[in-house]
């Protein structure tokens, strides 16, 4: 199955086409089945935290063209839901949701930190930029399961890495698809495409009104 992978939670604008194959839906409940295989067919990535809204759809179309397919060949969309500090995070999510809606295919959310961790085997600590002098981070065990996070906080609150340290990396299309592979292959109903905001919106209720007369 061909999967469209999107992420806008880091400074990178990421779109890729990934071929996903693996155990049939009936087999995936067993833990000893063959691992799914995700291979990159085409990818377009630009590192520019202010260009998420501008470049994502052109990157999708370019990746589709590079892959020699059309959007109608895409069987599912997988989108990174952050955490990410950029307003562009929403560009990725709404793009994924609208593409999936118009193509009539499911759109699966994945935690962007999971997508970054879903690479080489082994334990990992994933750290990304949260701006405002803070970072997002999560920890993963040797089997790749998330054991802590995602958290947001100052760098000195992040634990010492056990295993691989992925420090300010961006997810690859293959990593994005791997993080959702079992759900996609099983044809499970996707969860909502809700960003992992981790922070409350900046908003203050108005104080008592100031008098204009002394």
């Amino acid at each position: 199955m061909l999967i469209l992978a999107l992420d806008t939670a880091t400074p990178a604008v990421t779109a890729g086409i990934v071929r996903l194959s693996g155990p049939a839906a009936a087999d995936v409940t067993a833990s000893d089945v063959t691992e799914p295989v995700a291979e990159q067919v085409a990818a377009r990535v630009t590192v520019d935290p202010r260009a998420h809204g501008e470049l994502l759809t052109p990157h999708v179309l370019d990746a589709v063209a590079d892959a020699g397919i059309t959007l109608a060949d895409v069987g599912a969309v997988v989108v990174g839901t952050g955490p990410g500090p950029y307003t562009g995070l929403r560009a990725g999510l709404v793009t994924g949701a609208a593409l999936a809606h118009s193509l009539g295919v499911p759109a699966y959310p994945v935690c962007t930190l999971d997508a970054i961790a879903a690479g080489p085997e082994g334990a990992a600590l994933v750290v990304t930029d949260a701006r405002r002098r803070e970072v997002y981070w999560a920890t993963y065990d040797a089997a790749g399961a998330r054991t802590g996070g995602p958290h947001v906080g100052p760098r000195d609150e992040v634990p010492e890495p056990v295993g691989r340290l992925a420090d300010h990396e961006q997810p690859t299309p293959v990593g994005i698809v791997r993080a959702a592979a079992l759900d996609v292959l099983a044809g499970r109903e996707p969860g909502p495409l809700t960003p992992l905001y981790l922070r409350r919106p900046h908003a203050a209720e108005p104080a008592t009104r100031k008098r204009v007369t002394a």
Partner: protein
Amino acid sequence: MAKIIMGIESSCDETGVGLVAAHDDGTVELLADEVASSVEQHARFGGVVPEIASRAHLEAMVPTTHRAFDAAGLSMSDVDAVAVTAGPGLAGALLVGVSAAKAYAAALDVPLYGVNHLAGHIAVDTLQHGPLPTPCLALLVSGGHTQLLRVDDIAGAITEIGSTVDDAAGEAYDKVARLLDLPYPGGPPIDKAARDGDPQAIAFPRGMTGPRDAKFDFSFSGLKTAVARWVEGAQGRGEEVPVADVAASFQEAVADVLTAKAVRAATEAGVGTLVVSGGVAANSRLSTLARERCAEAGIELRIPRPRLCTDNGAMIAALGAHVAAAGHKPSSLDLSANPGLPVDTVLV
């Protein structure tokens, strides 16, 4: 064959998706107009909180689109073009609509038109009253804008004649409502309270109407301060604030200045049609006074029904239909939202 245009609006706190049919004879027909509002989430902050609005747009965008297609009985493959508000508006809010529109246009393989929100407020009138006679003047009044515009071509030639130098008219309503302990947004509760009041009870100032002031600009900041002073004075004397009279007198001052300047601008330009649109156009005193003064001056007045006056996707679809019919080149898919998009840029 009619062309189906989908319109997406997300410049402030309303997520709007509209569908219109653009007919060969130039008329544009409303097929669906679905809006999801986050206004209640902003109420306790006394104004729109951009991050809250952006979050709400993301949640509402696809469900609102679903509802629009259901309401029109159309499927997505019927769409011939997608139009979207490219600006002006809140950056994070615009980004959601623009991103969605690009994805829909790409997936459906149809042209994309990134258009001006303010021009959309004028174009929406063609859904109700038919093709717009040009040139015409438009008075746009809402929580975000107060502008007097000359329209020579709704698809491309709009020029600003005047605008507010400080608060938008709708903002003044919100602030005065707060003074009077009325809910947010302030327009409807002030309008309601004013019904039982005397509009001549208090002589509030008419901003920017002096001989040396810009003829067609507006100012509501001084009016707002005058109302605050008056209310504080009454409170200081231990008197009960006559809410209805204050509301009616404030509303009279706003409607008086808006309509006087709009009618004067139309008369001086020799233009026979005035369109009044935007959220404040639904205000009863503004529409009554505009009707009286336009009739006196022999000017045709067009005010879209309240539902079309507030922000919605149908207005963007309507503008998209006019822009497409005029044969303008569609926007590029690397289109960016422009929070400060000038009013004379109808299509980006």
